[in-house]
Structures are given as C-alpha cells and as structure tokens.
C-alpha cells in the first residue's frame, strides 16, 4: 500500500517486490464438486421415500347390521387363505353346501404364476357368468401365522389385476377351519 505518495521508499539499493499474483482462481473444480453434491442430495431425497399402500377395512358392524345386508353370491367370490410359511390356499366357496358339493382347494404361491393366474382365471369366470369381471369379490383371509409381506403381496396383486372389490376378513368360515385343520395351520 502506498499512501504517503510522491517520495516512495528508499530503504535499500534493491527493492524486493512481491510478485503480483492474479486473484482469479480456477473455479472449474469447485463447480464440479458443487454439482456432484447436488446430484447426490437430489437422488438421496427422491429415492429414499417409501411408498404407501392404502388399506380400507370394513367398519366393525353391529349385530343388527349383519341381518340387513344380503349375503354376497359365493359364485362371485374368490377366497384366499394366507397361511404360515408362505402358504396360500385359494378356493371358491359354493353357493350352497350339501352332501354332493365338491370343493377344490388350490395350494398356490405368491408368484405371478400362482396367485396372478388364479385371480385372472376367476375374473374370466365371473365375466362369463355375470357379465362383468369387476363383480369379482376377493376375500383375503390371513391366518395368524402369515406375515406382513404376504398381505402386501396379495394386496399388491389386487392392484395389479385391477380387482375392484376385496376385503381383509377373518378366517371364520367352516371351510376355512376345514382347510386349516387339513393343512395343519393354526387358525387362532
């Protein structure tokens, strides 16, 4: 800094003068780093977000409500019973049970080949019989031993196959207890 003006400094024969350096810095590397971090934070914020799946349970009904509603035709339904150890039993309850009734119970798995095929088959059958595949009503009956993944898988399959009507119910049908008994699953 030279504020005294005019005269200057006369200190020695040779003045050591600091080399004037440019104040400009190459910012390229800094910008690179900046954008790298931006990318990281952008990805971290969007990818970390879990998704949710909405579940609607039927409201707990009082006993007198039960009498008012007519029961659904069983031929419009499909039942899925979720058991322990990733077991899944699928069946269609007959409309009326008598001595000659035959019931097929399929033991299927959660893969597209198992569960999805079953649902799609039922959708076709309901469409043939009732004219509209959206009339299919899927009853999902988890047993205590099944796990959350099983339920999520089944609910997911409902969305994938566009099943309009389904419900999570208790496995308290006589057929359910029969299956549970035959397959050694705990029902309570």
């Amino acid at each position, binding site marked *: 800094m030279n504020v005294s003006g005019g005269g200057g400094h006369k200190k020695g024969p040779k003045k050591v003068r600091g080399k004037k350096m440019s104040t400009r810095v190459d910012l*390229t590397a800094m910008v690179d780093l900046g954008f790298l971090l931006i990318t990281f934070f952008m990805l971290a914020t969007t990818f970390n977000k879990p998704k949710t799946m909405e579940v609607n349970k039927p409201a707990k009904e009082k006993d007198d409500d039960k009498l008012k509603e007519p029961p659904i035709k069983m031929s419009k339904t499909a039942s899925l019973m979720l058991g322990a150890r990733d077991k899944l039993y699928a069946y269609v309850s007959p409309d009326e049970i008598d001595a000659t009734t035959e019931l097929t119970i399929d033991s299927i798995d959660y893969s597209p080949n198992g569960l999805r095929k079953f649902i799609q088959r039922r959708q076709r059958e309901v469409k043939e019989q009732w004219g509209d595949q959206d009339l299919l009503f899927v009853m999902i009956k988890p047993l205590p031993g099944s796990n*959350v993944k099983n339920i999520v898988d089944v609910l997911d399959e409902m969305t994938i196959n566009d099943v309009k009507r389904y419900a999570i119910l208790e496995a308290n049908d006589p057929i359910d207890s029969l299956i549970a008994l035959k397959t050694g699953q705990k029902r309570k």
Partner: protein
Amino acid sequence: MPKVKIPRKSTAIDMTAMCDVAFLLLTFFILTTKFRPQEAVQIDIPASTAQIPIPDRDIMMFQIAPDGRLFFNLDDQPTRLKLLERLSTAYSMPFTAQQKDAFRTLENWGMDLRALPDFLSKDPATRATITQPGLNIDTTGGEHQVEDLILFSRQENNNLRIAIKGDKTTEYRYFDKLIQALQNRKVNKFNLITSARAAKE
C-alpha cells in the same frame, strides 16, 4: 483479397456465477433433505407396486418389529407435547419440564406408558442402549394404552394419517392386534408402508 483474421479468444470462462448457482442449489437440497430418524428397531419393509408417496406431515406411525414389539411415532413435535399432556392427565402421571422436553424429541418409542417417565429421565445416550419392550397392547389390565394413544393423538390433530410399518416377517397375529385397536377407535383406513418395486410381468 485481404484475409479476415478471427481474433483468438481465450477458452476460459468466468465460473463464478456458475459456482454461485451450484452452491445455492446445494444449500437448498441440503436444507430440504430430511435424514432418517434414529430407529428403535431395524425394520425391513416389504416391496409393492404402490405408487403413492408417503405424505410429509401429520403422520402417526406404528412400527411392528419381527418379534411383534410395537413402536409409536408422531412426526409433529407440538402434537407430541399435547399428547403427553393428555396422557399425563389420563394416567395421572406428572411429567417434569425436562421429561417433557425429552418426549418432544423422542422418535419411535415403545414401552408401557407407566415406564415412560422413568425412561424420559435418562440421558439420550443411555436411552439408545436400552432395548425397548414395545407398547403395551394388552388390555386385560383394563387399560387400553394403544387405543388411548390413537384417540388422544387424533383428537389433538385431526389431520393425522395412520401409517403402519411392518417388517416383512412380522406375523399377522401382531398386525391384527394393532388393527383391532385401530378399529376400536373407528379408524378403518390406514396406510401400509412399502418400498417401491416394478410389477413383474
């Protein structure tokens, strides 16, 4: 013919403005990122094709560990304080200012409500080392602790959405107990938290 000489320009450009923009954006993203809260228990969520992202605010979250232990979390700190006030009167448990402050920042906890004051008195480092036993969902003692939590929280903030985060391997019987408690409090709609997955064809 005279040759047109193109003046040679330097290829170096002024990076200052670009640098400013980059760091401005960086600051924005850093500030808006929410880091995952400390988990009381490790939960491995199942995957689904559901596309609805979880809402940012007003969430009441229940976590169910593989062994059935149940944990509770409210995201909103003022609501947490109001909830504690309600619990304090309902269970006639007085809380000190210190305990209240500890509860305000407490994420994901699960224990019998009676054990709560004692737990809140401990310092955060000790709290992290304790294995929490899970909420008391058993109603045989006449107390409906989980139902009260649901009821009070919803009364203090009626926009609350209920989310359930269950581990893949959590058995349905634990899940069902929670759903029964929710339904007893007339909550018939709730969200299951899953991670994203593409549909297999």
